[in-house]
C-alpha cells in the first residue's frame, strides 16, 4: 500500500507536512523498545511506537524505516519533527492503541517481514 493509505486505515494525522505520501510500504514492526527494533534488521518500512523521543527517529534512520506512527495519540515536539523531516521520515499519529493499530494494518496486508525468531 501507499503511505497515504495508512492515514485512512488508522484515522491518522500527518505530523510532518509536505512529504511524499505516495511511497510504497509493505512491512512493519511495533515496539517501545528501540534496541529490540534494531535486533531484527530485516526489512521494516513502518515503525509503530508509543515512545516519543529523538532516539526513535535515530533508530528509524539506522533501520531505513520510512514511516513512524505514534500510537495512543502521542505527538512529538518541534525538535523531533524537524529531525524526521531532515531525514525524510514520515511521522503520523493515531488515537488507536498499539495492538489495534498493528491489527488494522496487518488485516489490510501489511506484514511483519521476518515474522518469527528463527
Amino acid at each position, binding site marked *: 500500500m501507499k503511505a497515504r493509505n495508512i492515514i485512512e486505515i488508522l484515522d491518522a494525522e500527518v505530523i510532518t507536512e509536505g512529504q511524499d505520501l505516495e511511497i510504497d510500504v509493505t512491512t512493519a514492526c511495533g515496539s517501545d*523498545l*528501540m*534496541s529490540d527494533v534494531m535486533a531484527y*534488521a530485516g526489512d521494516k518500512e513502518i515503525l509503530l511506537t508509543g515512545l516519543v523521543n529523538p*532516539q526513535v527517529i*535515530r*533508530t528509524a534512520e*539506522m*533501520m*531505513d524505516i520510512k514511516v513512524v506512527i505514534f500510537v495512543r495519540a502521542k505527538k512529538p515536539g518541534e525538535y523531533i519533527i524537524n529531525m524526521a523531516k531532515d531525514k525524510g521520515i514520515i511521522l503520523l499519529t493515531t488515537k488507536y492503541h498499539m495492538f489495534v493499530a498493528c491489527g488494522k494494518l496487518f488485516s489490510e496486508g501489511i506484514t511483519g517481514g521476518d515474522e518469527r525468531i528463527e
Partner: protein
Amino acid sequence: MEMKELSSESIKLCYQIPGNDFTIAGEASSNVKKMLTQLGVNPDIIKKTSIAMYEAELNAVIHANGGVAEVEIDSNRIIIKIKDEGPGIPDIQLAMQEGYSTASDTIREMGFGAGMGLPNIKRYSDKLEIDTKPGKGTMVTIEVNCQLP
C-alpha cells in the same frame, strides 16, 4: 566535531561523542551512514554498520559520559573504534548476555537499556573486540567486511 582525512587507500573520520546528551546521541553514526551511502556501499552493509555503531555510540553516552569515535573505511572493510574513559565493564560475559543491563530507569524509559546493545553490536559485526579496564575505560572495535564499489 568531525575530522576527515582522505587518502588513496582509506577514509578516516573522527567524532567527539558528547556525554549525557541523549538528544543529539547518534549524530556520529548518522554522519557515517551518510558517508557510506555517498560511497555507494551495499545498503544491507550500511544498515548493519549503522546499527552496530549507533548502539556502541549510545553505550558511550549512557555509561561513560561520552567518548570518541574513529572510523576507517578502506577497500574491503569498515573499522569503527568507540573509545571512552568510563567505568569499564567488570564482567564482559555477563554484559554480552541479552537482557543484562546496568542502565538507569531514565535510559530505560527512553527505549534503551534493555540489555540488547552489546548483543546487537555483536550480531551486526563481522569482528568485535572489547578492550576494557575497570575504572579506566573501554574501547569497542567493530569491523564490518565490505567491498567498496
